[in-house]
């Protein structure tokens, strides 16, 4: 059986260029399945050369409680047990506050609280023009359990990799360090952090590095928009040294990346000769040798 390697691109801070760089790397990496785990706000599909959607799957995130007025005796038990203040004085459950724990449902003496699964999103499996597969998902606006949907995307991606005989899964992760990020990171083999040379970038980089250390995932760092502030680039290089992280290199600020996005292309497809594309090719070479050693 082939050993599937999972590589995840994360950032801590949003807007550092994670998706643009994942897209560009996917252009260079061969025989892979791509997974977009930024299920809140998926963007990667907008710049990939996709063929068609092969399969759409429904995602059920969790249950939500609903009080049936005809059966409710207004005893107040549900309001006593709800720790989320989700039940109003006239016994209506606020879906935003409801965590879906079921306390009101299980403890209501009149059995007046329904507790049903809700459709919370969709997961799509697509084919790409280079005979790969791409899995992404959409949460319905405001729904919960994005961590669970990330797990679903990753599962589908692994299934596709097995079917196709591909040994690499390239994952575009969400920003932050919370639930969906943890779900994107656990059990992966390599984390690539895209950061930017600003105080906010540096602050968030430290926290995401702590997280990848916590899960003992081999970690590599890319500095995007590297010409904004040279002192932070140096600090990032030092941070990598001190923490035993691989420093993959720098990509200078490149307005063509936005232009490429407007043409629904990755930068490597749109402007293969620009400085940023060159930098990404170098990063890809380094990544390739790290992946071979894993």
């Amino acid at each position, binding site marked *: 059986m082939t050993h599937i390697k999972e590589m995840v691109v994360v950032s801590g801070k949003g807007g550092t260029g994670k998706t643009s760089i994942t897209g560009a790397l996917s252009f260079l990496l061969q025989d892979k399945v791509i997974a977009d785990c930024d299920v809140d*706000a998926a*963007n990667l599909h907008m710049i990939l050369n996709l063929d068609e959607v092969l399969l759409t799957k429904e995602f059920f995130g969790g249950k939500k409680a609903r009080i049936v007025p005809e059966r409710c005796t207004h005893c107040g038990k549900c309001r006593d047990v709800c720790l989320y203040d989700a039940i109003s004085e006239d016994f209506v459950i606020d879906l935003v506050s409801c965590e879906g724990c079921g306390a009101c449902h299980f403890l209501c003496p009149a059995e007046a609280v329904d507790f049903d699964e809700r459709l919370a999103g969709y997961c799509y499996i697509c084919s790409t023009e280079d005979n790969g597969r791409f899995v992404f998902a959409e949460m319905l*606006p405001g729904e919960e359990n994005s961590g669970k949907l990330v797990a679903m995307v990753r599962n589908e991606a692994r299934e596709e990799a097995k079917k196709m005989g591909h040994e690499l899964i390239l994952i575009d992760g969400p920003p932050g360090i919370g639930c969906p990020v943890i779900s994107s990171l656990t059990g992966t083999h390599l984390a690539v952090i895209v950061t930017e040379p600003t105080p906010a970038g540096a602050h968030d980089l430290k926290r995401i590095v702590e997280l990848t250390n916590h899960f003992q995932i081999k970690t590599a760092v890319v500095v995007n928009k590297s010409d904004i502030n040279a002192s932070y680039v140096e600090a990032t290089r030092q941070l990598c040294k001190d923490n035993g992280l691989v420093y993959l290199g720098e990509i200078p600020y490149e307005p063509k990346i936005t232009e490429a996005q407007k043409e629904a292309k990755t930068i490597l497809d749109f402007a293969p000769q620009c400085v940023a594309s060159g930098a990404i090719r170098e990063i890809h070479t380094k990544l390739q040798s790290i992946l071979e050693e894993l």
Partner: protein
Amino acid sequence: MSEVQYIYDKGLKAMEDMNIAFASGKGGTGKTTIAVNLAYFLACSKQKVQYLDCDVEEPNGHIFLKPTIDKSTPAKVMVPVIDQDKCTSCGECSSHCQFNALVTLPGNVLLFPELCHGCGLCVYICPEKAIRDGDRGIGLIEKGIATQDIDFIHGILNVGEPMAGPLIQEVKHHYKEHHVRIIDAPPGTSCPVVKTISDADVVVMVTEPTPFGLHDLKIAVSVAKNMEKPIGIVINRQNGEFPPLETYLLKNDLPVIMVLPEDREIARHYSMGDILLQALPLYIDRFMELAVNIGRLLGKTKTQVAR
């Protein structure tokens, strides 16, 4: 009093005791920059301002506002404590737990604290009364005073902790009366954002004129619309025209309440942790306009409520 001054004063007045949330969908569009500078502008205009950073996974407001933190308290959530002597391994707790935080094995019950949502159902459901309330730290709440006497508060989620929601709620428990409350939301469109903007009087969506920015803006707007929030749009890093955004805004009747141009000087000062308005005062007019426009949006909601 000039008409401009009148509208302006009225706008500021309308903001007192209001919750103004900044969201975006896509990360890195400039949410924090706009929120910080509006807070600074209002504070300079002699308003009482509170800045609440609800982006607890990666809080950044403090980098610019540089508060002196005078109080730091751990934030806790409830977790069950199981008395293994009383436990009969009946499995009632684990079969009811919706979050798979409890697993019943022969002879004992295992708790996975990071999966627990602290709902307390297991405490109620245990027939042997073998489970009681305990607590677990998920992060820190820090309070202090920032530049221009801005009342500052943020939550810092522990690294490795998935539960951002309860920490966001905790930040919001510190609302101060008679202040304009500026609330910085996390990126994305799911539960942490919903929790942050749930009691906002107006939601300012900061977007960038790119396909990614627009795509995520649409999702964020639909979340806020579902919650019946008045929405104002800030376009950041404007650089020429991006017709798809203009068409979308027009079609959905979304007012643009401020535009900031793509300006390398802004990026440079951002990269040094400066407050934009301190470094580049030429942008003060834009923030005055933003304040007036938010005041108008708030005025509108008030009339709607009155009707």
